[in-house]
């Protein structure tokens, strides 16, 4: 059964889905090559197509991670990304295992998507049954995922242990064209869903009870949210690695919350901060020959520290101007016409 599923994933359906993405990739190579001729940056030299892909993946991560992270952080769900990343690792292990045993040749990122989404739904169902997201169930899911991953890998130890670092810590140079195309599909799903349901997700995030009264199915939006989180985590894993991927969901969002007044502003600022971290991080790690994931997170945390000071400064400037509170006007009610 599952074999049939993976064969299907690996052939026709997947190829048609990814075809336009390969087209976009070609365009992206061309664009960065032009940019190279203008700027002469060695980083984007046409010789290093993998860097072109890595930058594209980084830019996508810089949009989708804070986008989803904003909705998670403000519900005190910052840890769910971490839990899902570790189950995604189990998914990677399943993919490698199947490839090893059945020689399927399916991308481990695809099995990671499947496993992480299932785990996301599981966490959500547990929380529905117990009426709370609790850190205990999250910790259990996290360690189960990681344990399952290590066991599957050790079972098949032969050639597998070699390639595991790229999943744990991420790697710029191993972003294949196929994986970049998969990421573009995930990116489209995530951004599309958030664009469509922004209001609903905002309402549920800010005030769950009022959202329920206003007729929204809080349960369903929560399920959508955790599934999107699973997709982001798997997408971002290629560069960030399992262990650090959750940082991109949390750190830029926490920074944006320091300096923003409105929700829209905080979304925008968190994306800008994340892009800054990703691009600086990729650049530094390229020239300094360090692991990209780690550098990106360090840069993001550095930016976060700066935003704390900026936020304090803003508060001091704004405090001077307290507006006049108007009176409650009983005569002119909106419903009275």
């Amino acid at each position, binding site marked *: 059964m599952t074999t049939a599923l993976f064969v299907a994933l690996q052939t026709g359906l997947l190829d048609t889905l990814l075809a336009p993405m390969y087209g976009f990739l070609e365009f992206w190579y061309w664009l960065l090559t032009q940019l190279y001729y203008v700027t002469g940056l060695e980083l984007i030299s046409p010789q290093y197509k993998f860097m072109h892909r890595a930058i594209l993946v980084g830019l996508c991560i810089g949009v989708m991670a804070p986008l989803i992270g904003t909705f998670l952080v*403000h*519900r005190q769900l910052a840890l769910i990304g971490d839990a899902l990343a570790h189950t995604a690792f189990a998914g990677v292990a399943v993919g490698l295992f199947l490839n090893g045993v059945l020689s399927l040749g399916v991308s481990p990122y695809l099995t990671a998507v499947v496993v992480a989404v299932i785990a996301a739904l599981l966490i959500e169902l547990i929380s529905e049954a117990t009426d709370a997201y609790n850190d205990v169930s999250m910790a259990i899911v996290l360690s189960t995922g990681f344990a399952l991953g290590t066991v599957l890998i050790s079972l098949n130890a032969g050639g597998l242990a070699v390639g595991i670092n790229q999943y744990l810590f991420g790697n710029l140079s191993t972003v294949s064209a196929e994986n970049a195309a998969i990421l573009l599909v995930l990116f489209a799903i995530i951004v599309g869903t958030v664009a*469509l*349901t922004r*209001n*609903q997700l*905002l*309402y549920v*995030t*800010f*005030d*769950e*009870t*009022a959202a*329920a*009264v*206003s*007729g*929204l*199915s809080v349960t369903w939006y929560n399920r959508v949210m955790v599934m999107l989180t699973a997709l982001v985590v798997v997408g971002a894993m290629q560069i960030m690695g399992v262990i650090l991927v959750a940082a991109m969901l949390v750190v830029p969002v926490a920074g*944006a*919350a320091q300096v*923003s*007044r*409105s*929700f*829209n*502003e*905080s979304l925008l600022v968190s994306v800008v901060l994340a892009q800054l971290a990703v691009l600086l991080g990729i650049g530094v790690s390229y020239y300094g020959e360090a692991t990209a994931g780690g550098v990106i997170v360090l840069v993001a945390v550095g930016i976060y520290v700066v935003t704390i000071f900026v936020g304090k400064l803003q508060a001091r400037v704004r405090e001077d101007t307290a*507006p*006049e*509170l*108007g*009176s*409650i*006007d*009983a*005569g*002119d*009610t*909106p*419903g*009275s016409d």
Partner: protein
Amino acid sequence: MSTMTTARDPTEEQAESKLDDAVVELSNVEFGYTASPVVEDISLRIDSGEYVAVVGPNGSGKSTLMKLMLGLLRPDEGTAAIFGEPSHVFDDGARIGYVAQHASASKEMPITVREVVRMGRFPHVGFGRLSAEDNRIVDDALETVGMTAFANRRVTKLSGGQRQRAFIARALASEADLLVLDEPTVGVDAESVEAFYDLLASLNESGITILLIEHDLSAVTEHADRVVCLNREIYFDGPTEEFVESDALARAFGTAATFVGTKR
């Protein structure tokens, strides 16, 4: 005078319209979070245009009753209906405005007063964007609660009273037929509380049904038309004047409670 003879029997007409107009209807409702019920044997109906207050001591099941009415909880026994539909399946959120006791909302989220009030329009637009008309309604609601100057302030940086005004504005912006308020004036300064109840009265006059969950008995006896006194079961349900004269209060709250002494 002559119209009276040609008109239909007023009691009959009333009875008929009442059947259509039940905004909330509970029959024999029982609910408990654990084995022991928090509310039991609750039957009541609220008709369109009424101004009803639910009072009771702390832990008497007031908020639970409200959640049952709104379909946030499902009764263990009996049925709960809102606008003629079972509460838990009713999803026309545009008809209900809701103001919570200490807004249940996120405490640190960056969001402005205007963005909160705009949420009141969300049930009207579905997956669409807010129109110019929606934004005008939002502005009016802000104006009505005197928060226009605070529209672009971060909600988390406001005082309790100011924040509560923002949530009241959100309920106003929803242009609902039924306004449900769970201890809405907790943390609001005394002067604004008075103005706030005047606002509720004028909303009620314009035909909006008001359901107020209140701990402050003096506010209830001054403003509501009908009182439901609750402590696990209904001790009293009727016009406010009768409630003041009855001994329901003493029975529900214990002997210590009086109308003047309980204001907080």
